[in-house]
């Protein structure tokens, strides 16, 4: 039997994943420098190993950056938790700094109340309507956890077909809540159907309501999921 040469795939130009994050933000020619360009670069930089950045510096930059920003965000969350604990015990004594923090927070609440009053007494001419959904959107919610849904829809959406993007949590890498269904009711209003999975981490999830025809942003949906179960 005559020996037939087995067909072979061409040797791939690379055999591993590209892990150089620098490729994301550098010109095309920098991703695949020609040997000539490499020679030239070496020539400009003098003796090898002297002024060139060590290999892996760019990914190290991203790693360092993530370390700094994640620490920063974690510290912010811890401070917020401590503050929330302090507020829960307001009136039960505490140190001067703790009391000051509570007073500051109460001051903010007071300012918000005054602002609402101000806005209701003196609605500015031409100002948009208050940002509550009003009767236009009805929310159907299926959830075992305690949850609060807030829908803000810009006025003048009658007759438009709307959709909702998946709702994302504070941590962009965490699973999304998924896209709620946005439908029309017989009376012309909208109906938002949302199911919160039992395994969903407590937190705040938000997403955009968009016009299905032109993709423009028409409002927002925010859901707060509590750690406490409704039946607890």
């Amino acid at each position: 039997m005559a020996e037939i040469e087995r067909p072979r795939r061409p040797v791939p130009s690379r055999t591993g994943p590209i892990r150089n994050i620098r490729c994301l933000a550098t010109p095309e020619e920098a991703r695949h420098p020609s040997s000539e360009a490499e020679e030239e670069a070496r020539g400009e930089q003098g003796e090898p190993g002297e002024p060139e950045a060590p290999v892996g510096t760019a990914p190290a930059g991203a790693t360092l950056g993530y370390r700094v920003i994640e620490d920063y965000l974690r510290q912010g969350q811890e401070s917020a938790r401590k503050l929330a604990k302090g507020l829960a015990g307001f009136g039960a004594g505490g140190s001067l700094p703790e009391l000051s923090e509570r007073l500051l927070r109460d001051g903010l609440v007071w300012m918000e109340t005054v602002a609402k009053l101000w806005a209701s007494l003196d609605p500015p001419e031409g100002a948009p309507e208050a940002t509550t959904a009003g009767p236009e959107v009805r929310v159907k919610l299926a959830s075992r956890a305690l949850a609060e849904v807030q829908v803000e829809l810009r006025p003048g959406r009658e007759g438009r077909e709307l959709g909702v993007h998946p709702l994302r949590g504070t941590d962009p890498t965490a699973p999304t809540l998924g896209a709620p269904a946005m439908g029309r009711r017989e009376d012309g209003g909208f109906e938002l159907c949302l199911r919160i999975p039992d395994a969903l981490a407590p937190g705040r999830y938000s997403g955009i309501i968009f016009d299905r025809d032109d993709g423009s942003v028409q409002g927002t949906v925010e859901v707060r999921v509590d750690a406490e179960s409704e039946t607890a």
Partner: protein
Amino acid sequence: MTVTRGGILVRELLDEYGALTRSALRRWLPQQQPRSYLYDLAADYPFRGGRMMRPSICIATAKIFGAANDDVLPAACGIELLHNALLIHDDIEDESQERRGRPTLQRLAGAPLAINAGDFLAFLSLRPLLQARERLGARMVLRMFEELDRMAQETAEGQALDLGWRRDNLIQLRETDYLEMVLKKTCWLATILPLRLGALVGGRDPLDLEHFVRFGFFLGAAFQIQDDLLNLVGDHQHYGKELSGDLWEGKRTLMLIRLFERANPDERERIREVLAPPREQRTSASVQWLRKLMDVYGCIEYARALAHGLAGAAVHEFELLFGDLPDGRDLHFLESLPRWVIERA
């Protein structure tokens, strides 16, 4: 250098939104008496021709979330006025010589009047926001003030670290120390606040603004490192500031931190000696020695590569944040910014 399509779009939108903001700023910076002691000084930096990156980021973000120009212009003006107020004070604190191609304000008018003009601009930055109540409502104005309040604290902390390290001649810093300082000093006002105010106005409040901190940090940090690099290797005409001014001022840049890390014990000792005295006692020869040593140890290339990594992370964070949103010019502008900040000359 090849100009990419993204780079062209960035320049176009910076021009367009910059002109829009400058035009609105004229209303807040009147030509009235005492002109030579206050109003002309306050209007000097805002009309020297900065890049207008901050207001442009704010406007683009707001428009992505559906706002009209008139909704977001007060926030864009407020940010730009505050930025210029802090530039005046920074130039005095750093004893800087040039800003946007001309002598710094304290060199033109003297430090007392320059400080006063900076104070005025800082307070003036609240006025457009207050006036936005007519259009956006009182609750939105309060929310914007809360954002300004947080940014003011972060920026002051970052500036304090920068100045304190110099005063105490601290050199043995970690790169993470530098990035934390930049997060506070630069990123909050340059990128995080514009993104957050834009999203606040465009989204009419319910959006979770913490989402914008990561993208703003990576973008702002890459921007700052490139700015520090241009101070050492830039074209003076384009750069608009004194070349090697950061070395004269003893600023703790990533390149200086890297240099100290790589230098031998004798060189470290000399670096300490060079940076110990105040600016006026530093010599041209000692500054040149520092600059050359940076080349020997590849500090410029190192910082450039690190900035590329941060810009890459910004691209990644952009996708996570904005990937679901409808396509458009404003979205492409934000998407192209990470690359633009590390390629600008």
